[in-house]
């Protein structure tokens, strides 16, 4: 397999270095991951340390992003929140991708009543306004971070199910699947060994595009008070808490966490395009 990996890396290098936008996307992504990993270690102040006398101070040399209503350093909070937001997003996407692709692959391969039933369930799921559905799930299961992850995963599930089902459907009647049958492989081995690895690429592309959405989702739920609770540092909560101070002119309480959100979603969306370009088979001559 190393031949294939080497070839992929070569294409990856070609794609990334060929377009400046791609370099930016990759750079930003790397930067965000770095913040997530190193955030708590390099933050100048503790994200939870309150210091009420210096509450609502504008950005200064001591506090780059200013302080919030409890005197906490906004820069530190934004930095540390990266880890939480990214974890929620990655967790939700990973969960829905794995679960969705397995379900989609099985119904796409076997078809019949299984396909009909599950597809109708998926249709019903997609008929709901997804954000409202997420709210309902969290409200029902309880207000914890884990449940935010589950809720985001659930509302993303249909996309992966449909994608996997369509991709499997296309490939299921190809020669190499028939060859595998003639070569003694049972249905499940064919699904696992022959089909799933071949639908990997479109799923990964969908996942990387999905990441941006997932971050936004998680922040949105927290903004409404679902899932993550004070005093945890999380971009959505910070925007919610800071919103009340916008009118009185303390813009830094909202703008910095919002910018962090925007840059992250932007970077993941760009990344999705880069990944698609790398994995697009047409680039392989």
């Amino acid at each position: 397999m190393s031949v294939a990996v080497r070839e992929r890396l070569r294409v990856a290098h070609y794609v990334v270095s060929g377009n400046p936008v791609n370099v930016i996307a990759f750079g930003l992504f790397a930067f965000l991951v770095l913040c997530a990993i190193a955030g708590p270690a390099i933050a100048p102040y503790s994200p939870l340390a309150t210091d009420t006398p210096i509450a609502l101070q504008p950005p200064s040399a001591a506090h780059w992003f200013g302080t919030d209503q409890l005197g906490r350093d906004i820069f530190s909070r934004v930095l540390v929140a990266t880890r939480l937001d990214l974890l929620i997003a990655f967790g939700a996407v990973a969960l829905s991708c794995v679960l969705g692709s397995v379900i989609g692959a099985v119904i796409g391969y076997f078809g019949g009543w299984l396909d009909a039933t599950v597809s109708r369930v998926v249709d019903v799921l997609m008929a709901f306004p997804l954000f409202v559905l997420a709210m309902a799930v969290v409200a029902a299961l309880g207000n914890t971070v884990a449940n935010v992850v589950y809720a985001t995963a659930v509302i993303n599930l249909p996309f992966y199910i449909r994608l996997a089902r369509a991709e499997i459907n296309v490939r299921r009647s190809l020669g190499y699947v028939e060859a595998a049958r003639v070569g003694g492989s049972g249905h499940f081995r064919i699904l696992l060994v022959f089909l799933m690895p071949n639908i990997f690429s479109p799923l990964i592309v969908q996942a990387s595009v999905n990441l941006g959405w997932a971050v936004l989702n998680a922040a949105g739920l927290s903004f409404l008070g679902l899932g993550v609770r004070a005093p945890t540092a999380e971009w959505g909560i910070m925007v919610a808490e800071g919103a009340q101070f916008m009118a009185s002119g303390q813009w830094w309480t909202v703008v910095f966490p919002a910018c962090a959100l925007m840059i992250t979603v932007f970077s993941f969306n760009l990344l999705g395009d880069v990944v698609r370009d790398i994995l697009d088979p047409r680039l392989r001559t």
Partner: protein
Amino acid sequence: MNEQSVLDARNISKHFVLKGGGGLVRRTRPILHAVDDVSLHIASGEAVGLVGESGCGKSTLARVVSRLIDPTGGTLSMSGRDVTDTDCAHFVHSDLRRKVQMVFQDPSESLNPRFSAFDIIADPLRQLVPGKGREAVSARVQEAARAVNLPPELLGRFPHQLSGGQKARVGIARAMVVDPELLVLDEPTSALDVSVQATVLKLLDRLRKEANVALLFVSHDLNVVRLLCSRILVMYLGRIIESGPTEQIFERPRHPYTKALLSAVPTLRPGQTVERVKLEGELRSPIDPDPSACRLVGRCPWQQARCSVAEPALVPCGPGHEVRCHFPLD
């Protein structure tokens, strides 16, 4: 040569029930007769050609014979053992699975893009012949590659790094690696350039003689079948309408459709004047065909009254030669 029969199929039918019934009054769903009452016998080491145009059912029949799909009716025996009661799902795990292998039409689609050529060839071996260690498998794969003239350095490559001819050979090696008795080939050369076709055809002929493997060669290309096969079966709308030795079929076809088919093939054979037999109209529908009429009715230039009221049976008309026609040509 061993005269044991490799395949004995009798009265094979494959019907597909279609969705969408015939209105509110009729309760029965329309049935597509892909294959109707076909009997086929292949002896060890024999090369049999199955020809016909699109919609004749030859691909479906090929898949019934290679046990990818179950027939609706009829009996099937392989290597002397009756397998009628074993359905495909169980056949996959039977010890007879490795005796019948298949070579597919489009080499680009019939090789797993994620496997190296080595793994593609090794996979059936690992699945169907258990108990072989890594070295044994590797040796056998190398041997299969040598037998198809595939240079060993290509075994590490992936399908998209191979040429059309090389991919075709990987497909053949994959089928041959488990020592089958019967190779079912579904248009294996249609997607290849003419210069590569020659290589593959000669290779198949050599394998047949050296490994004593029987070939069921399904194709629409009569010229190719003529060179490779000793016996030809002609199919039309799910039925065998003529079968016999290759020379007989080519020099003295008895069925109007066979004659039309042969006359339509562009040929450069010197001295042979081609009298074009034209079939009017389009193919009839294979859905719920009229059981008491010949399937060529409406298109046959020699049609007579009898043809619309009774379907002809397959009857002998020469040594080893059968035809399904009320008024065979001479």
